[in-house]
C-alpha cells in the first residue's frame, strides 16, 4: 500500500460521502427537470468541491481533525487541517447511502454502547472501531448533551485519539460567554500543540467574515419565509444543515445562500410554492429525518405542508466583530457558539425555548408544530408537553410529537412518520 492511499484511508467515511454525493448529484442532474429541487442541486454543487479539496489535502498528509458539530468549523480555519464533522458525516451518510449507516450503529452497539445514545455519534464510533477513521485529534465542546459527554471519551480511552475539550457552561450570561471564550482559545492552542501548528487567527478571521456574510443572507431569507406561501422547499432545511457542516467559512457557503436567496425572491415575487399549493405551515422545533429526506418532498408535494423552520435554521447569530483584539474576537465566537443550533436550546432553561417557539409561530404564521423527539436528546425530554401547552394557550395551534431517531430508520420508520403526520393533518384541515 502506498503512502497516498494510507493518508486517504484515515477518513474513509469522508470518501464514502463524496462518492455518495457525486452519485446523487449525477442523478439530480440527469433525472430531475431544471426546476427540480433547487436547494438539493445547489447544495451538492457547492459542497462537493470543498469535500473533494479536503480529501486531496488529506492525501497530502495534512492533519485530520475530527470535530463535534457544536464546535464551529470556521473556527478550525486557523489551522491547515482537514476538519471532519463526526456527526455531520455520519448523518449525511445515513441520508445518502442506500442502507444508511445502521451497520456502524450495530458495530458499536455490539461493542457495548447503549442504544439510546445519539446515532450521529454511534455512526462515527462504529466507523472508528472498524478503523475507517484515524484522527490526529478530535475537538468537542461539553455540549449540547449527555450523549456527547458520554460518547466522546471512547475516542480518547479506546481509540487513543487525542481529545481536546472546550468546556461550555450552562445558562447564557456574560460570565458564561467570557468563560467559554477562554475555553475556545485554550482548546485551539491545545489542538495546535497536538497537531504541531501555531493557530493563525488572521486566517480564522477571514473565515468568520465569510460566515458574517452568510448570516446576513440567512436573515434576508428568513424574512422571505414569513411570506405565504413559503418560497423555500422543505429539503432546504437538511441541505442548509449540510452547508453549515461542510462549507462553513468557505466562500462556497456565501454562494449557496446567494443562489437560494435568488430562487426564494423569484418565487416570492410570483407567489409560487415548490409543492404547488401550500396548505399547512409547520415549524419543526427539532429536526426532520436524515435517514430519509424524501419526507421533505412528500410533505411539500403530497400534503402541501411547508416546513418553515427546523432547529438548524432558527438560530440567527449576531455578526462577530472581526476587526478588534483577540479577546473581543473570542467573546463574539463564544456567543455565536452558545447560540448554535441545539446548543442554544440545550445550554439554557426551557423558558427562552418556549418563548422563541411562540414568537416563531406568530412571526411565521404557523398552523402547527411538529416535534420530533429524538431518543438520544434527553435534554429535551421534558419539553414536549410544556411546549404543547404554551402553543395552545398563547397561539392556539396544535403540536404533534413523534418519537424517532434522526439517523436510524429502525426506531420509527419513514412510513410510520408519514402515517402519523397524515392523521394529524386530517385534524387540521
Amino acid at each position, binding site marked *: 500500500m502506498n503512502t497516498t492511499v494510507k493518508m486517504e484511508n484515515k477518513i474513509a467515511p469522508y470518501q464514502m460521502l463524496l462518492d455518495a454525493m457525486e452519485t446523487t448529484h449525477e442523478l439530480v442532474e440527469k433525472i430531475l427537470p431544471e426546476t427540480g429541487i433547487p436547494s438539493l442541486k445547489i447544495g451538492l454543487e457547492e459542497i462537493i468541491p470543498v469535500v473533494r479539496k479536503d480529501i486531496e489535502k488529506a492525501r497530502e498528509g495534512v492533519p485530520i481533525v475530527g470535530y463535534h458539530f457544536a464546535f464551529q468549523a470556521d473556527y478550525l480555519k486557523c489551522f491547515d487541517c482537514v476538519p471532519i464533522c463526526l456527526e455531520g458525516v455520519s448523518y449525511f451518510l445515513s441520508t445518502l447511502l442506500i442502507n444508511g449507516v445502521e451497520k456502524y450503529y450495530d458495530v458499536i452497539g455490539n461493542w457495548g*454502547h447503549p442504544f439510546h445514545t445519539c446515532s450521529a455519534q454511534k455512526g462515527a464510533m462504529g466507523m472508528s472501531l472498524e478503523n475507517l477513521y484515524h484522527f490526529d485529534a478530535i475537538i468537542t465542546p461539553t455540549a449540547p448533551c*449527555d*450523549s456527547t459527554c*458520554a460518547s*466522546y*471519551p471512547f475516542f480518547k480511552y479506546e481509540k487513543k485519539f487525542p481529545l481536546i475539550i472546550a468546556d461550555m457552561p450552562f445558562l447564557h450570561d456574560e460570565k458564561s460567554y467570557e468563560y467559554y471564550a477562554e475555553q475556545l482559545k485554550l482548546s485551539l492552542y491545545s489542538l495546535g500543540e497536538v497537531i504541531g501548528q501555531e493557530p493563525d487567527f488572521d486566517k480564522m478571521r477571514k473565515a468568520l467574515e465569510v460566515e458574517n456574510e452568510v448570516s446576513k443572507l440567512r436573515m434576508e431569507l428568513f424574512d422571505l419565509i414569513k411570506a405565504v406561501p413559503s418560497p423555500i422547499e422543505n429539503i432546504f432545511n437538511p441541505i442548509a444543515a449540510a452547508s453549515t457542516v461542510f462549507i462553513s467559512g468557505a466562500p462556497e457557503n456565501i454562494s449557496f445562500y446567494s443562489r437560494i436567496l435568488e430562487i426564494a425572491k423569484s418565487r416570492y415575487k410570483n407567489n409560487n410554492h415548490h409543492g404547488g399549493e401550500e396548505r399547512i405551515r409547520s415549524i419543526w422545533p427539532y429536526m426532520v429525518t436524515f435517514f430519509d429526506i424524501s419526507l421533505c418532498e412528500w410533505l411539500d408535494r403530497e400534503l402541501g405542508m411547508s416546513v418553515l423552520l427546523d432547529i438548524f435554521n432558527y438560530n440567527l447569530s449576531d455578526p462577530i466583530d472581526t476587526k478588534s483584539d483577540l479577546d473581543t474576537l473570542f467573546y463574539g465566537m463564544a456567543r455565536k457558539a452558545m447560540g448554535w443550533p441545539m446548543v442554544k436550546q440545550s445550554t439554557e432553561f426551557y423558558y427562552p425555548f418556549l418563548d422563541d417557539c411562540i414568537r416563531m409561530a406568530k412571526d411565521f404564521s404557523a398552523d402547527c408544530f411538529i416535534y420530533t423527539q429524538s431518543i438520544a436528546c*434527553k435534554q429535551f*425530554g*421534558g419539553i414536549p408537553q*410544556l411546549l404543547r401547552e404554551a402553543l395552545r394557550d398563547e397561539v392556539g395551534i396544535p403540536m404533534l410529537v413523534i418519537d424517532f431517531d434522526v439517523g436510524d430508520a429502525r426506531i420509527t420508520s419513514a412510513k410510520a412518520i408519514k402515517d402519523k403526520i397524515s392523521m394529524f393533518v386530517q385534524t387540521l384541515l
Partner: protein
Amino acid sequence: MSLKNDQFLHISDSITNPYITEWLANGKKVLGYYCTYIPDELLHAANLLLFRIRATGNTSMNLVDVYMVRFTCSFVRATFDMALRGIYDFLDGILICNSCDHSRRMFELFDLKVFGRENFPKPASQFYYSIPHVITDEGFEWYYTEIQELKAELEEKYILETITNQNLLETINIYNKNRELLRKIHEMRIIDTPKITGSEALQISMSNNSVPKEVANRELERILNSLKESEGVKSNGKRIMLVGSEVDNTDFTGLIEDSGALIVSDFLCFGTRNFLDDVHLGFELDPLKSIVERVYYRISCPRMMDDHERRLNFMKNEIKRANVDGVILQRINNCDLHGCDNMLYVHELKDLEIPVLNLDREFYQADTTRLQTRIEAFLEMI
C-alpha cells in the same frame, strides 16, 4: 447483631421521616437535590436540611408520562411522578445543577408543575449552578464562583445574614465526621467477613441523606459500635462490587444478594462516591474554597468527561482492597453517562481478567426474572 430492624435504616423505607417533620415544625427549611456534586457544608451552614431526592416506593408513572418522554431515566421520572402526586410538597426549594440532562431539567419541571401548582402549600425557591464537565484549574475557578454566588443567594433568600467562615468551619467538622463514620462502616463491609450487607449499606446511605447530619452522626456512631460486636454476615456468596447508575432501591441490591452474592463495595452516588474524600482546610483558611475543592476534585462520576482513567484506577484499587470476585455494572435505561462509562469498563476489566456483568435495567423492578437469570448465571460463572 443484625441491622434488620434498626430504626435508622428504616428511615430509608419512606420519603419523609419524623426528623423532617420536627425540622419543619421548628420553622426551618428543607431543600431537595439530585446530585452529589453539591456543597453540602454550605447548605447546612445556611440552616437548611438537605434531602437527596429519591423515588423509594414509587410504582407508578401515570402522571409523569405526560411531562417526560419515555426516553428519560426512569429514576428521574419516578421522582417526578411522586412530586406530581404531592409527595414532595414538604420541600421549601430545590437545588439543581447540570449533572445529567435528565435531572437538570427538573428545575423547570418543578418550577412550572410542582412549586407553581395552585395548591402548593408554601412559597418555594429554586437554585441552579453549573458545573464544568472537565477537571481543570479554569473549571475550578468557574465552579468556585458559582458556589460563591449560590452562597449570596442563600443568604438573601433564606437566612438574611452572612454565612461566616466560623459557620462553615463548624459544618465542615460535622460533615468530615459524617464521612469518617461512613468510611469506617465501609471498612466493616470490605473485610473478609463483612459485618454488613450491600443492602444495609445502601439503607444507611439513604437514611444518612434524609436527616440532619447531627442526628445521622449520632446514629452512625451507634451503628458502628454495634457492628464492632457483630459476628458478621454468614454468607458464602461471591463478593461483588456494584457500579453505575443511581441505586436507591433495596429491591435491586436484594435481588443481587439473594442470588448468592454479597455486595462488598460499590461505585455509586448513593455509596462510596459520597464519603471517600474529606474537606481539607488549606493554608489560606478559606473554608468555602476548601468545600468546593472537595466536591470538584473528588473521585468523579461519568459526567466528568476527562476523568475516566482515575475512575478506573479507583475501581482497580477497590477491587483489590475489598477482595472483589466480580463487578456488576448497571445502567438505568437511557442513562447515557453511566451506560457509556460502563461500556469502557467492560473491556478494560475483561482485559484485566476481572469477571464483569453489564446490566441494563429500569429504576423500578420490572423485569426481575430476566435480571435474576443473568445475575445467577454470572455468579455461577465466576
